[in-house]
């Protein structure tokens, strides 16, 4: 410290430099610039967010590849309840840290996308006023039925009913998932296909072995192998 007050002037020089620089340096302008986008194209609902074909998003940080807001239920296209992946095993309900999921299992089984008769959720509610977007439900789901949506414009004048997402609000197609999280969805689909292939190969090998072991009993055993796997067993 040579001159009294010298340090203060040094600091003032920094603020002056920042002030002047804020008019010239692009990286000083930290506010997101939406002016490039016409007003009606601004994200009204995040469902719109995957940009239109050919449109270039300039901001890279608003919705990222891993962005997560609230969960959604996946179906494989077509009529949602015909291809819903959820089998109402209630693992997510049990594991959900803030306990915001409520599931009621159906009483009878229905064929799902793979043609197997399965239970389905008669009720599947997520209270998004309680949900904390932690993604635990996604991680524990053994059927890849629940994933994170990136939709964030969810404000509603209806405080209770509007924030309680029912099953039909939550159902989204796998195509939509591919749109909002392309990398993650591709990796997930790849893993599902691999698991399916491995399972089928295993099943085939088991059937083959059974046939060789006892030819007269082969048919009965092969049929037994075709039966529905126990849900609880899968869950483990």
């Amino acid at each position, binding site marked *: *410290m040579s001159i*009294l*007050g*010298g*340090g*203060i002037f*040094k*600091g003032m*020089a*920094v*603020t002056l430099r*920042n002030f002047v620089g804020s008019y010239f340096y692009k990286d000083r302008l*930290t506010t997101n610039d939406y002016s490039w986008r016409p007003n009606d194209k601004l994200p009204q609902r995040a469902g719109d967010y995957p940009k239109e074909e050919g449109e270039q998003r300039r901001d*890279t*940080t608003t919705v*990222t*590849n*891993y*962005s*997560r807001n609230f969960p959604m239920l996946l179906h494989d296209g077509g009529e949602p309840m015909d291809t819903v992946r959820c089998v109402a095993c209630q693992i997510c309900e049990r*594991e*959900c*840290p803030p306990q915001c999921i409520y599931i009621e299992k159906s009483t009878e089984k229905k064929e799902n996308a793979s043609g197997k008769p399965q239970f389905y959720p008669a009720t599947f509610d997520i209270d998004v006023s309680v949900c*904390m*977007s*932690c*993604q*635990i439900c996604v*991680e*524990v789901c053994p059927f890849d039925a629940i994933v*994170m949506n990136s939709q964030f414009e969810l404000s509603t004048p209806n405080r209770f009913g509007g924030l309680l997402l029912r099953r039909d609000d939550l159902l989204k197609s796998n195509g939509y998932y591919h749109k909002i999280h392309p*990398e*993650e969805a591709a990796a997930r689909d790849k893993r599902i296909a691999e698991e399916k292939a491995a399972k089928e190969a295993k099943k085939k090998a088991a059937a083959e072995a059974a046939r060789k072991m006892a030819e007269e009993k082969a048919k009965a055993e092969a049929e037994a192998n075709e039966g529905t796997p126990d849900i609880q067993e899968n869950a483990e």
Partner: protein
Amino acid sequence: MNTATAPNYELIQQDGLETSLLEISMGPHHPSTHGVFRMDVKLDGETVVDLKPVFGYLHRNHEKLAENMSYLSSMPFTDRLDYFNSMTNNWAYALAAEKLIEVEVPERAEYLRVVMAELTRLVNHVSLVGFFLNDLGALGTPLLYAFREREKILDLFEQASGARMMCNYFRFGGLRNDVPVGWIGRAREVVDRFPVFLDEYEQLLCENEIILSRTQGVGNLSRELAINAGITGPMLRASGVNYDLRKVDQYGIYDRFKFRVPYGEAGDCYDRFMVRMLEMRESVEILKQALEGIPEGPVMGNAPRVFKPNPAEVYGRIEGPKGELGFYLIADGTPKPYRYRVRPPSLINLTVLRDMCLGGKIADTVIILGSIDIVLGEVDR
């Protein structure tokens, strides 16, 4: 207004004048208390005669909640302890649980953990320094410069984990997902430009006479008291104790990096401020080394999502940005912990607040509290 007599304090009685101590309740809604925190202060004029910290307004039952849910389910709640440092909170908890189930963490995950933890340290220190100067009366400018840098790091967090603050990124045995393509390059850019900001910040503040005269010799914490009170982190090091869990425990892969541990001498507010400034430079050094050596590979080991550990007692601790953050778990063979306890650095560092404030001016109390670096989410849990 209330009259009270503090212990070991004699009021000056003058002829014909009746004097009494002034009791003020600072908080819980006071801008200087960084949340809902109250200090019952007894004043003789402007001198602090007695101080009682009152907290618990933000109690959320974190520990009991965690004892009633599976190990994985309480991971997102650890984000909310010290909401500036969700990544390091995750790490401490993951470290404790990994001791329970004995899983190996893949190499890439270890490196990314170090990267995330050191970025978190930058976020924490940068915002602490900003808030500290805000308390000093440098309203706005230093805080917003600091937050401008913090924003860049939070963008990195968002790209990697999907959330800016509640990252919930660590898992037992690794990380939830790999970082996106190009992330490491972006991180390197941020890290390389960080020292520029630090230089600017030091030029802005470190020679400022007002800051020097307001912080030097204020709120002295002696070495003995710091050790006896169990103070950890930058606050302990500012008092002249060279103790850093990254060097002592060498958890994770900290033994592979070359870095120095800055420590102070006087243990006053200025030392606490400077230790953090210097620590940021060391964090940048670690980050450069870690980002250089990051290998390819998986980020998740063979750890089960939901598990029943064998009965055991474990304690996992890390050097959080605020001090030693520890998680103590007792497993009883069920999917839920029998006992779950957090050792919060904020709370334990807060215990010496009274000792540091006594005899000082009331305006200094605000700075001293600011230099402790508390987050009420962690103090109250």
